[in-house]
Each structure stands twice: as structure tokens, then as C-alpha cells.
């Protein structure tokens, strides 16, 4: 899903916040030919999108950031739903593909270009 060599890791941004970075995530999913936009019509326009990898079938969720929101809500970010989840405690996958809870820090994923640090 990206033009970079594969990289997965956690970095600290200029505010001292830890962010999980995955190089395969595109900075603009709407322009990635490998992704199919499967967003629910009611979610469109509210900044909450879902895409399906045409090759693997993997679904990713993409939330547009809003500057007036706290935390991750202020920044464009991704989530990877866990297709084998049994509940909220393993609903998403972290950067390494491990199950993590809904709303957890580790469930928020970023492409490298969208994270800045000094």
C-alpha cells in the first residue's frame, strides 16, 4: 500500500507523543489504486472512511483529523480491524499485527509522512 520500503515502528513526535508508524499506509488513500473505497454512505462527509485492499482483502479505516479535537482526533490516522476479533479487547491490530483493544493508543496508526518530529 505504499511506495516506501517496509517500516513499522513507534516514534515520538514533536509534542512528545508516541505514534505507531507503518510505511505501507498511504498518506492519501483516495489516490492509492490498490485500495477500494467501501465507506458507508452516511460516514462519507463526516471524515470516516473504510478501504479494502483489492489484493489481500484487508480492511483499513481512515479518520480525517479535525484541528479542534484532542489527541488522535486532531490528526489523520488509520486503524486496522482485526478480522478475527472476538470482542472489544482484540478489535484492532497494532503496527506489528498484534490484537489490541478498541480505542487503544496502539490501534492508532500513521504513515511516516504524516508524523513530524524535531
Amino acid at each position, binding site marked *: 500500500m505504499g511506495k516506501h520500503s517496509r517500516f513499522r515502528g513507534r516514534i515520538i513526535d514533536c509534542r512528545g*507523543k508516541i505514534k505507531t508508524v507503518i510505511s505501507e499506509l498511504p498518506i492519501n488513500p483516495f489516490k492509492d489504486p490498490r485500495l477500494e473505497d467501501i465507506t*458507508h454512505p*452516511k*460516514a462519507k462527509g*463526516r471524515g*470516516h472512511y473504510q478501504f479494502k485492499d483489492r489484493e489481500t482483502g484487508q*480492511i483499513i479505516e481512515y*479518520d480525517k483529523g479535525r484541528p*479542534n*479535537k*484532542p*489527541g*488522535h*482526533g486532531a490528526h489523520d490516522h488509520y*486503524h486496522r*480491524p*482485526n*478480522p*478475527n*476479533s*472476538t*470482542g*472489544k*479487547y482484540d*478489535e484492532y491490530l497494532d503496527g506489528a499485527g498484534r490484537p489490541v*483493544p*478498541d*480505542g*487503544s*493508543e496502539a*490501534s*492508532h496508526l500513521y504513515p511516516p509522512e504524516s508524523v513530524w518530529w524535531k
Partner: protein
Amino acid sequence: MNISEHTGFFHDGSLIEIEHKNDKIILSMSSAEVDETDLKEPIELSENDRIAGKLHIEGVKNIIVDDEVLEVTLKKEYDNGHICDFEIIDNTVNLAIRWVNYPRKPEVDVFSVITIEGQKIYWENIPDLEDGL
């Protein structure tokens, strides 16, 4: 605490339960994980660093789900409500929810926009809320 100042933390949180009886609605909710340094005022968080509790809406005057007035009881029909948007403006609660069933195969494709107008809205903070993560 004035919950309307903190609704932004509920993006990526959970709508855990809905209790609707007569003109009263109680929404059990938990936020996403919160960095305490982002809080404008001290709030007792759950063990997993979330704002968890119940939103009480009393004197409910109007419920709108997906642009249609709801004439029946508001219910939670799926295993979890993933909160995409949550805000309180004056006496109106606005929620955008992506519903989830477990396991996620097949994926539920239901998204609801819920607006509830009441006479009084207040937050009951419950850090040890059951299933609040």
C-alpha cells in the same frame, strides 16, 4: 465536570449500552485512551486511561436517527457501537456510530447518526464501568 468540554476524547471510544425508558435515556460510554496531559481539568480515568461513565439525558423531547424521527424505544442492536463523533451542543447530543458485531466476519455495514434533544444532560463518571475497557 462538564462533559461537553471533553467529548472529543470519545472519538474511537465505545457506546456500551443504551437504556431508554419514558423520557429518559442513559448512554453508557467510554472514551478512547486519554493522555492525562491533554485534559483541561483533572478527571478520574479508568484503569486503562479512559473516561468512562453514563450520559444521562432527561426530559427527552426528540430523537432523530438518520434524519428520521424515532417513535419507538432507542435500542442498541449490535455488540458494540464504535464512536466516530460525539458532541453536546446546548441540550442536544449528537452521535455518529459505526456498529460492530463480533466476530467481524461478516463485517456489519451499519452507520448511524443519532441526535437526542433533552431538557437536562449530565455525566456520571464511573471509572470502573463494566465493559468500559
